[in-house]
């Protein structure tokens, strides 16, 4: 076997040094009754060439949206990935190392995490950020749990237009523990019903605000903050903002509207869709909450010779030290994807990232305007949006999607069909359309005319 490098002679020499005759003898502590006598019911090992042919054949049975003109978003975006990201991530020095427990031989990983924490904190307009969580959904769920930890009655006020997959994970984390989820309906324009929200926010705990929300709508976070501040301080819930990072090139960041914690999904910052993962959960917070947030943290310090260096810090919050009192059970996180985000944000840089965000905003509105003019089509919600919007089609969204697929276009998400029962104000005609920086002007115009043609029948 290529990865076990022992020859028969090596094994004999080692058995002699150990003082046993056969390797089998080393398994004597395993009772006979549970020792396998037959090989596992799995095919025997095969060569690289044969395995690659198998895996490529499996790949060939996919029809990736990435190879088509895709308007499918809903939290996972078909964004550009600079070549430098793959060039850096494919270095053995980064992908074969593990958690930097021994700082002297891990300064590479530690400094990239320190720079990742700085970029995420600045993006979110917050004081600091952790080293990464599994994904955006678990980041939201764990932070909501932690911010309500120890409170008398643990409440999380959740807007109706929260991403249904994020809602499902939050509900799972809240289930069977004394954490109550208090739903808040949408206003007719698809934004949070601020009055209902304020009413629901009288019992402390946490208020979750997703910006933009699942329909791509930009919530009036300034108005939400204002309404929240009318609640007496003792009962006022902490604001947890759940953001789509690319929108932060255009929209006021969570730090600007008093969020205690900001979470998000980093997939749109240089990661391939890869059928749902690995992605990277972002967590940023105000300095006051640093000891509450989950996950690893890297801090700067100096060594015995006065040299600047980086170490894992505040590990006392973590499971390997605080065990059952840890803020989270997370050990292995999404470090390599955090590195990809770091390289991505450095490659775009301040001006590139803002241009990316601006570009998506402008292109999405160009498409929305064009669609809005098509007979039988209309924007489902009149509210402002960033780069995603719901289109009310003259025919079921599923039909539009099927027909568009034949022309190499992934038209978007049939929300009602994919998430039945999640959204009362959405029906089978509603199509969620996302516009990324990959979509050229020609593709936007062609898509609008395609919808026009498909609308007619």
């Amino acid at each position, binding site marked *: 076997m290529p990865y076990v490098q022992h020859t028969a002679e090596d094994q004999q020499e080692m058995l002699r040094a150990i003082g046993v005759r056969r390797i089998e003898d080393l398994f004597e502590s395993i009772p006979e009754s549970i020792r396998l006598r037959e090989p596992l019911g799995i095919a025997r090992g095969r060569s690289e060439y044969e395995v690659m042919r198998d895996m490529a054949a499996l790949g060939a049975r996919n029809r990736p949206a990435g190879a088509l003109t895709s308007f499918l978003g809903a939290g996972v975006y078909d964004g550009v990935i600079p070549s430098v990201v793959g060039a850096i991530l494919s270095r053995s020095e980064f992908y074969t190392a593990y958690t930097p427990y021994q700082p002297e031989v891990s300064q590479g990983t530690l400094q990239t995490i320190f720079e990742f924490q700085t970029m995420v904190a600045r993006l979110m307009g917050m004081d600091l950020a952790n080293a990464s969580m599994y994904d955006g959904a678990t980041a939201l769920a764990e932070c909501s749990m932690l911010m309500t930890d120890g409170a008398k009655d643990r409440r999380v006020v959740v807007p109706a237009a929260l991403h249904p997959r994020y809602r499902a994970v939050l509900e*799972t984390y809240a289930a069977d523990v004394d954490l109550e989820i208090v739903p808040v309906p949408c206003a007719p324009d698809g934004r949070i019903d601020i009055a209902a929200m304020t009413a629901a926010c009288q019992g402390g705990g946490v208020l979750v605000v997703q910006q933009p929300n699942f329909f791509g709508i930009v919530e009036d976070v300034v108005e939400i903050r204002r309404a929240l501040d009318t609640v007496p301080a003792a009962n006022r819930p902490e604001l947890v903002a759940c953001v789509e990072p690319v929108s932060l090139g255009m929209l006021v960041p969570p730090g600007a509207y008093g969020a205690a914690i900001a979470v998000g999904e980093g997939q749109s910052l240089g990661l391939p869709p890869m059928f749902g993962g690995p992605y990277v959960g972002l967590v940023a917070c105000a300095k006051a909450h640093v000891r509450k947030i989950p996950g690893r943290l890297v801090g700067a310090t100096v060594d015995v010779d006065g040299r600047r260096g980086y170490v894992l810090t505040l590990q006392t919050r973590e499971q390997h030290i605080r065990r059952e009192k840890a803020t989270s059970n997370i050990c292995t996180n999404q470090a390599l994807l955090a590195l990809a985000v770091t390289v991505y944000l450095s490659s775009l840089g301040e001006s590139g990232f803002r241009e990316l965000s601006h570009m998506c905003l402008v292109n999405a509105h160009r498409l929305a305007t064009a669609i809005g003019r098509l007979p039988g089509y209309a924007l489902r919600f009149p509210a402002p949006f960033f780069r995603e919007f719901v289109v009310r089609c003259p025919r079921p969204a599923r039909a539009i999607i099927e027909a568009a697929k034949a022309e190499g276009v992934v038209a978007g998400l049939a929300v009602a069909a994919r998430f039945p029962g999640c959204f009362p104000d959405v029906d089978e005609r509603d199509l969620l359309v996302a516009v990324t920086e990959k979509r050229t002007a020609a593709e936007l115009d062609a898509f609008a005319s395609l919808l026009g043609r498909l609308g007619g029948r």
Partner: protein
Amino acid sequence: MEPTVSTPVKAPLAGVVPAARANGTTPTLFEKSRAGRRAYRLPAWEGHDTRPEELLPAHLVRQGSIGLPEVGEPQLVRHFIELSVKNHHIDKAFYPLGSCTMKYNPKINEDVARLDAFRGMHPLQDDEDSQGVLEVLWQLREALQEVTGMEEVCLLPAAGAHGEYLAMKMIRRHFIATGHPERDLVIIPDSAHGTNPASVRMAGMRTVQLASGADGLLDVEKLKALLDDRVAAIMITNPTTVGLFEARIVEVNALVHAAGAFVYMDGANMNALVGVARPGDMGFDIMHLNLHKTFSTPHGGGGPGAGPIGVRGVLRRYIPGPRIERDAGGRFCWGPAPDGAVGSIHSYWGNFGILLRALTYVKSNGSDGLRRIAENAVLNANYLRAKLRHAYDVKYERPCMHEVVLRGTGFRKFGVKTLDVAKRLMDYGIHPPTIYFPLIVEDALMIEPTECETLETLDQFVDAMLEIRREMEENPEVILQAPHTTIVRRLDEGLAARNLELTWGGETRS
């Protein structure tokens, strides 16, 4: 023609290392940033002059700079490459970090993960366009069911701890659904990994610690004493974190079942058992695997990993949906989970890119290769044990499984701590073993060689440990001040916690 190294005996020259490089530290990208520089160029687009305020409410438009660095592509590449070579890593030298199974990461797995046919798949695409990715998940699930002997595997968890958490939620859901909410106690051996108790608490249950016996294994009598009708489950790591197989596991599992509780297996140490013994056959009800340990997916500087769980019996109905089904025609599709199942714990279907690498690894090894992994992991650990047990204090006298734990008590008399030995090993070009874990071994040094190292590498590690043992007597100062050859030495962790400088403070020079 191996030339001997003759170090010239001359007075050391002053200023040999130029001041600019003496420091060896790398400024952050923020310090290198220059306003106006940029690496990546976006595709052409029209509408640069459309102000955001024309499309968004002005008060919601971000003002002021974000503070992202501004560098060119060549400078960016040099920055990350300069940082990368500061890392120890598996493709550099021996990395015997106990319990982490730092085995070789096959390069074919990376080639498969680069295929656009997988990278370009959106998680919400129609089933008919996702047949390839669905079959990858199906094939991996089948293989892991066979490796673990469990009836059904769920690929959702993004790491081992995430799998522990899901399992505890499923157990919690079971007892609530069957009218026993009071069964909320989970027994945790004192040798268990910190994620075990943390996962139990996150799932809303309580923990009680079970002291291990002198032999490092479960103390069956103490266990019996704890087993009452409040106990929901026990979390057993087998082989234990001291590297020994729980010989009485079948009996233990039967005892726990008799008490109406479930038996969970922390499968982090499966590298010792794969192809040799199966948790399902030992009576475990539910367990997790760590694909970034046993199945060679890369550790990535701390992640990503994957922690699929294997389930048997009554708990299967709590496995979160959606589940993959195959119809008569061999077509794959997502199907719903039964009512009352635990909800999803991941935004989509788990760390697919890692699951893809694990399936590639399973196919490359096959049934014969998988068995050879455990055989040689255990052989290598026992070889190190045999070679070190005279110079160092091995706590348990019996052959070990895939890792051997040394006790620091043996060298306390020289004033040397386990941390010092770890630091000194760096000067020998070797990544230190895990230290001070498991907690039941005083000043532990947990050495896991994995199956991938050559005999020569194991001998070099033995030579280094024996050399360090000699230094303890002849020149302890060289150990106490170690490491000497690394770019930074003994960083001040206390200062880091006090200063809490978690982001680069200065302004990005713009």
